[in-house]
């Protein structure tokens, strides 16, 4: 868990650099909120031993913050924390029992409940000292949604360094890739899920005639593919299953981006992928030693 938090360090740094004070407030509120909700539920409702030390509540808070715009009021963030930890995790029985990624449950809950707040993206760099009063603008994906021809107006440098509008953690592609390399090197995750998501998005974008570079670096795709979809609890166990899961997420993402009502679909795609994970686990059994194909486990 702490390894993943460490891998998020570059992305968090980019968020603080680009979005300044707002990012700091949302980050603090989200992490503190998630840990507090977990503590309260454990202490007063489940009456179990505390589980803060394993870092999962910290990580959920961090991921949730990185999925929010930096001008979100604190009370909204706290509602997100309650949804993430309370509904997304503890309602299922705590760590290891949840079906859906808690941070995404929180984000999608906020996105559906407060669509205005959640889609007014502060412009980076010029808002270092502004919080809720930050000037906002559209993200590259919403520009694309309304006017597909405008894609070329956005520079790739901005996309890679995070100097563009969007959720706090999703804008700096380079920072996320640094985290990805760290996770691979520490063997926290395997390459299967991120690569299959990114590859399927790239291929589908190419088929449907989109701008591959923009589709890959824009929005929450990288953050989702590297940090959200790879969550152990909600992703399949076997490598074969992981690839199928990644393909499902990639396809749904492109479908939502192209034809859906929302400009961005990674969150929904990952949640849907989480939903089919138990089925994938049931189908994709590891290669058995000394078993002929006839006997199939019925679990």
């Amino acid at each position, binding site marked *: 868990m702490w390894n993943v938090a460490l891998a998020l360090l570059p992305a968090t740094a980019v968020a603080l650099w680009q979005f300044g004070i707002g990012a700091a407030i949302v980050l603090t509120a989200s992490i503190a909120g998630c840990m507090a909700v977990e503590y309260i539920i454990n202490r007063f409702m489940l009456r179990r031993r505390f589980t803060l030390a394993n870092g999962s509540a910290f990580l959920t808070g961090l991921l949730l913050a990185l999925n929010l715009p930096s001008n979100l009021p604190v009370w909204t963030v706290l509602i997100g924390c309650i949804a993430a930890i309370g509904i997304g995790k503890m309602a299922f029985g705590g760590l290891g029992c949840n079906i859906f990624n808690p941070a995404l449950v929180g984000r999608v809950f906020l996105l559906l409940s407060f669509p205005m707040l959640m889609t007014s993206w502060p412009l980076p760099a010029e808002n270092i000292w502004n919080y809720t009063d930050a000037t906002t603008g559209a993200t590259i994906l919403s520009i694309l949604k309304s006017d597909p021809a405008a894609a070329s107006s956005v520079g790739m440098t901005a996309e890679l360094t995070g100097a563009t509008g969007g959720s706090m953690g999703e804008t700096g592609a380079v920072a996320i890739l640094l985290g990805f390399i760290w996770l691979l090197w520490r063997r926290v995750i395997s390459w299967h899920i991120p690569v299959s998501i990114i590859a399927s998005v790239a291929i589908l974008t190419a088929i449907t005639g989109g701008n591959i570079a923009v589709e890959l670096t824009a929005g929450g795709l990288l953050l989702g593919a590297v940090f959200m979809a790879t969550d152990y609890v909600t992703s399949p166990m076997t490598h074969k299953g992981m690839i199928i899961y990644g393909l499902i997420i990639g396809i749904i993402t492109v479908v939502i981006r192209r034809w859906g009502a929302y400009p961005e679909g990674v969150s929904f795609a990952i949640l849907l992928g989480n939903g089919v994970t138990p089925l994938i686990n049931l189908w994709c059994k590891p290669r058995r030693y000394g*078993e002929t194909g006839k006997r199939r486990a019925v679990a």
Partner: protein
Amino acid sequence: MKTFSIGGLHLPENKLTAGQPVERLPLPAEVTLLLSQHIGAPARPIVKKGDTVMRGQLVAEPSGALSSAIHSPVCGTVSRIDTVKTPQGLSAEAIIIKTDESRPDALCSLSPCSDVVEATRAAGIVGMGGAAFPTPVKLTPPADTQPDTLIINAAECEPFLTCDHALMLADPDGVISGIRLIMQATGVNHCVIAIESNKPDAIKLLRRLTASIPGIEVMIMQPRYPQGGEKQLTEAVTGRMIASGKLPAAAGVIVHNVATARAIHRAVTLGEPLIERIVTVTGPALSRPGNYLAAIGTPLRTLIEAAGGLPENTGKVIIGGPMMGRAAATIDSFTVKGMSGILVLPSDLSSRQPEEPCIRCGRCVSACPMGLEPYLLSTYSRMNMTDEAIDALVANCIECGSCSYVCPSWRPLTDFIRIGKQRAISVLKSRKQS
């Protein structure tokens, strides 16, 4: 370099005693021969209190097909037949023989026997890799199988253990002679000696000595746990898998431990029954870890004393390797035929971490060399869901401990799977009967 294809781990080797010569321990003042040193029924004692016995004399005879004979490793008198503790702390019958210091330890050799299988049975040889399965049974493959390859298991994939390595360096000729005897007995004319690449001196030595012998080849294996498992080694060497519930012979191979091969050599050519073995006594805090040649029935304390005595901060004494071995409940116990090592671990290395919830990371699934899902099996076992566990192939588990080793939540997966497997096997047996 070859290795097996499903799961597996690369473990830190920790072979503290690698390359150390075999040191012979003096005969203990008293040996305690457990009657149950092997799989199958305990041996039946044929001596009584007060009898004098010679070194190598039969003291207990096999009481069934899977049972095995036991011989005295010393000249002396039977002082009693009594209940003693096994290393696990359970009670077991044993013959206790007091060594007679005055008498020369001349060997009372076995009656010469040209038939290798018979000689092996008379010598009480069991598999010396740890399972202690009677060797004569393995030397007579069922009639409907046609084994074409003999695999000599010298992988020694468990960390810390070096007894097979030391044996190959100390007596390579004995090993090769034993291999030829096994080939002769089973009619197999192709033999592969499988050695992991972390024992280059043994590979070089055996390559040189077997260069002129047709049919015997030394194969270098990539170090990987549990390569020394019979099923894994068979697949690594031949590419064939042993079907569940079948013997290796069904896949056309016979697997023997390298120490077993040497024991067969000594039984057939020298007439010496299995009365001693090499035990690796090791541990990071021991002052003189080493490979000791000890008589069967030597007290564990004697072995640990030889290695420098039990250190202050000892947390656990493990019989066998760190992965498959069991923590001893008492060290007031005795060496048996299948005991390959004694591992003395300090308390900071041996204590169990408190268990955390399963986060379904799937590491146990990728590590399992049998391609099972340990997280599921252990849950089934905890919930007493035997039927589901049988469907998820719990009976295939080889209890190698890889899943417990990789679990980031320190869950005792192997412990629970083991009891689930026991339940499943008893259910499967009763199903077969009805």
